[in-house]
């Protein structure tokens, strides 16, 4: 009888602990969701320069990027000429790449998703799974601050035990108008591995966005990848057939 009683008490305690959320979790999750929605909008089109910097070497590519909703994006290289026409299509976290040299579409296997995307410091996953941050993590508001007179929220996101994520945690700084200022990636020993920082925020395409962002590997300060947004439009009408494999191979825009 006493054994059973103890057991029930323990079960009850566990149940209560499991259901009580830490303070402000919902608010933090909403913040992250809002920031991601603000960043992607209902749809977007942009032209960006991606610069990959290494100690003895640097390379810049110009890309055109289309996104629609949370699940669809298309990236196409337009310069340098050697790489023009290469493209990446993302639909539902699945990734395909096309290269005109071989005139073939290749699906990126999940085992390659943590590999570098086009030789940059972004992994395929960074490009593909931005909204995982909303659905596969628990969020906690760990601080607030101000920058240039505006309020900044600091949210810590820890992936669910079952989530297919390599990171131990991610820390995101979000301005009060939902502009993402910083996104830091920690490994499972909670050591900072890389950090995406907004270096410049400007009005473009009808709203404030981070026009210069830099992904910095922490172990080597001289290795980074920078994204410079040259042109952007949001909430525009993008035809549904943009995000198809046939369009990846034969551009209609």
């Amino acid at each position, binding site marked *: 009888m006493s054994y059973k009683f103890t057991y029930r008490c323990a079960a009850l305690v566990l149940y209560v602990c499991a259901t009580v959320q830490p303070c402000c979790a919902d608010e933090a999750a909403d913040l992250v969701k809002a920031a991601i929605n603000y960043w992607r909008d209902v749809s977007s089109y942009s032209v960006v320069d991606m610069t*990959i910097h*290494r100690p*003895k*070497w640097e*390379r810049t590519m110009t890309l055109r990027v289309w996104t629609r909703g949370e699940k669809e994006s298309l990236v196409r*290289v337009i310069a*340098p000429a*050697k*790489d023009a026409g*290469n493209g990446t299509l993302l639909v539902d976290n699945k990734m395909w*790449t096309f*290269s005109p*040299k*071989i005139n*073939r579409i*290749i*699906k*990126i*296997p999940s*085992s*390659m998703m943590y*590999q*570098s995307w*086009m*030789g940059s410091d972004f992994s395929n996953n960074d490009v593909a799974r931005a909204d995982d941050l909303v659905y596969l993590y628990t969020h906690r508001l760990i601080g607030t601050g101000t920058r240039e007179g505006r309020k900044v929220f600091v949210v810590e996101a820890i992936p669910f035990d079952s989530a297919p994520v390599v990171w131990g945690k991610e820390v995101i700084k979000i301005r009060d108008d939902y502009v993402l200022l910083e996104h830091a990636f920690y490994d499972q020993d909670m050591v900072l591995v890389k950090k995406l920082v907004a270096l410049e925020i400007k009005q473009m395409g009808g709203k404030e966005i981070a026009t210069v962002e830099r992904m910095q590997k922490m172990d080597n300060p001289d290795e980074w990848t920078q994204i410079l947004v040259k042109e952007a439009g949001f909430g525009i009408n993008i035809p549904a057939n943009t995000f198809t494999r046939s369009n990846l191979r034969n551009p209609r825009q």
Partner: protein
Amino acid sequence: MGITLRLAWRNIWRHPRRTLLTLSAIAFAAAILVFMVTLQLSSYDAMIDYTLRVHHGHLQVQPEGYLHKPQIRNTIPDARALGSHVRQLTGLSAVSVRAMGFALASSRARSYGIQVIGVETEYEGKVSTIPGLVKKGRFLSSDDAQEAVMGHVLARNLKLNVGEELTLLGTGRDGSVAATVVPVVGIFESGSAQLDRHLVQLPLGTFQDVFSMGDHAHAIVVLGDSLEEVEELTDAVRFGLPAGSPLVALSWEALIPGLKQAIQMDWASGWFLYLSLIIIVTFSILNTFLMSVLERTREFGIMLALGARPGRIGLLVMLESIWLTLLGLAVGVVIGTVVVFYFHIHGFSYPGMEELAAYYNLPAVIKLALSPLSLTLGPTVILLVTCAAALYPALRIRLLKPVDAMRGV
């Protein structure tokens, strides 16, 4: 000293049967050790050599830092010329240039991340057994041919066969997209799971073209005549490299440290077994010595009374044990050497070894190598341990009092 030595010799033959029994225990242990140690060392050498001959070679010239961080940008410029230079320098023809990269390999059915290596088709067969292990189709024909060979596990995973097209997608040296479609002309079975699952080879020229390498490459692989010469050869190559170039010559121990470590671990665990054997033998010897001291209490008492110093009697007992051990070891080493010599000529094999050997890419018979080290290592350890054991009976003599001892049993 002379008389003590002779006395010791005569003493051990006072009980011929007991002496012979102890002797045979020592001889048996020594013979087993000689055989086992030789077998172990020989199979290590064979294993290392055959593993290296598959792919890595005995040594490689690489750009500094490439080993720990294999970045495609870290290269050897004008690599073919350096390859010929190393060929001249060493007088070996088994020198081959390789360029390496990572790529996504895909067929109609599937995609996998793999390693792509561009090889000098003319020389690759001299440093690596892979060209000879192509089980379906053929090896690469010339340095600029548009074709590929791949491991059989990868081919199975990609559902590709000889004659079908393989698509490679990666990043070139200048950061550009490297992509090509080539027909598979051969499929190899190297016996190494790693290579069979993850390796695609292209002709060097084709690789350099696809990965925007120019005349650059990543490694110059050298295979010497035997494992013993590797150190000298590495030094020779190191000193022959152009002065001031950021290149390093790395022997196989640096290239695949895991191989050496696995062998050291096996060697250490082998010695647990040998030490147990030696300890058991030592106890039986200790028993004999202790008996012979205890049963001769009266004799030692008389010797002490006649003026012999305890130290001298102790020395006598020590010499008896050393005689016995040396005699046993001599017989054991002779028997062991004869056995080793037989397998040196005919090769050693045991049932089921052929399959196992084929799997690990080992020869089906191991030729035992006659080396002074492997023949004497085991017996030396036995000698040291038994000498240490013989100290105890020898030191006991110091405790004897002449009068009591003479009245003893």
